[in-house]
């Protein structure tokens, strides 16, 4: 079952490579104004009057009130997010792969079976305040990556905040140790879900991570097509991956 799955994903990637290589035009002949349009550049998270934007010789029409408009080009209110996820999605795939490789390296070198102890018992004040702050920190991390298409942030910062909460739990509780099975399986399933989203986009639209969902109203939560789903998968993956790194640093081998 597992081999079949791996073969399917690999075949999809190979097909994507060949399909993509055929569509690249020679260097210098790409008409950029088709790809990055003026409308796309003028999206701003603050919905300012964008009449001052000039791209090439084309003046953007003034009074561009983007918020509340339906079916806009990409539908995300955050320019950085739509560039990273829609226009440069190979780059994000590469970043996720680099992080995965480093997590595997830490697990190979530092992994162990026994929970490491500090020299002193944790402070009473630290222990109780961690109990109160912990749900709020994790909720804030989830808020960052769910709202990645509306506010600054996205999968990587949100995952880092979740890993920070796990580190705080490790520092304040002598008994706690992360359930590695849950962490690893969440990481793996989320990573492959990201690739599967990309392959569905490839099958539907002909490019990796093509936006196959309706765009919705700019500025609301369920908008921007595939971007929030991709950021949820990336956020959960990075969060569980960095938590696994923190857990492996806190373990030591027997003897």
């Amino acid at each position, binding site marked *: 079952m597992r081999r079949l799955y791996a073969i399917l994903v690999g075949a999809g990637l190979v097909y994507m490579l060949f399909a993509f290589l055929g569509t690249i035009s020679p260097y210098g002949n790409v008409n950029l104004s088709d790809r990055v349009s003026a409308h796309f550049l003028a999206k701003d998270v603050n919905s300012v009057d964008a009449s001052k934007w000039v791209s090439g010789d084309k003046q953007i029409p003034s009074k561009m009130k983007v918020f509340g408009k339906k079916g806009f080009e990409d539908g995300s209110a955050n320019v950085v997010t739509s560039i990273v996820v829609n226009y440069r999605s190979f780059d994000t795939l590469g970043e996720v792969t680099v992080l995965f490789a480093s997590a595997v390296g830490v697990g190979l070198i530092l992994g162990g079976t026994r929970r490491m102890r500090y020299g002193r018992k944790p*402070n*009473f*004040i630290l222990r*109780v*305040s*961690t*109990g*109160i702050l*912990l*749900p*709020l920190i*994790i*909720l*804030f991390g*989830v*808020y960052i990556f*769910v*709202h990645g298409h509306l506010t600054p942030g996205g999968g990587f910062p949100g995952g880092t905040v979740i890993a920070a909460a796990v580190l705080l*739990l490790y520092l304040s*509780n002598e008994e*706690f140790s992360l359930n590695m099975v849950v962490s690893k399986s969440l990481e793996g399933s989320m990573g492959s879900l990201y690739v599967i989203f990309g392959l569905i986009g490839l099958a539907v639209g002909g490019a990796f991570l093509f936006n196959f969902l309706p765009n919705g109203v700019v500025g*609301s*939560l*369920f908008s921007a097509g595939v971007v929030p789903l991709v950021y949820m998968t990336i956020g959960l993956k990075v969060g569980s991956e960095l938590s696994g790194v923190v857990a492996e640093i806190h373990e030591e081998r027997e003897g």
Partner: protein
Amino acid sequence: MSVFITSLVLWLLLTKFTYSELLAGVIVSILVALTLRKYHGIKYDWKLLWRFIYYVFAYLPVFVVEMIKANFDVAARVLNPKLPLNPGFVEIKTDLKGEASKLFLANSITLTPGTLSIDAKGERLFIHWIDVKSMENKEKYISQRFEKLLKGVFE
């Protein structure tokens, strides 16, 4: 359950209210509450509203006034060219039992004039006091203002 309520309230405060935000908040709060059911320190009971009102109207004004006094105290000490200091580590007893109430007592002590709580063991709190006035009746100077109020809030 109490984690769920706190998370939902925080989510709605962080975002603007729409129905899709409410739906996402409910889902996320359920997940957070299920994940952390062993490691949280928030517990509510049926007297929540009364406690909240008591906290806002009885505890917060005293706390804010003490904090402003503490800052003028710090300002007077720092701006004085001779640096009048008389510090020492003292130990006081507290009557509070609950963990959250002791945490709030320690935080209040840290933010009030001239005291910094260092450690808590059982009923004993260890405090760095910048101006040791007397070794008897230490509790009168340091913690008695808050103990009654916090007992009303948390116990």
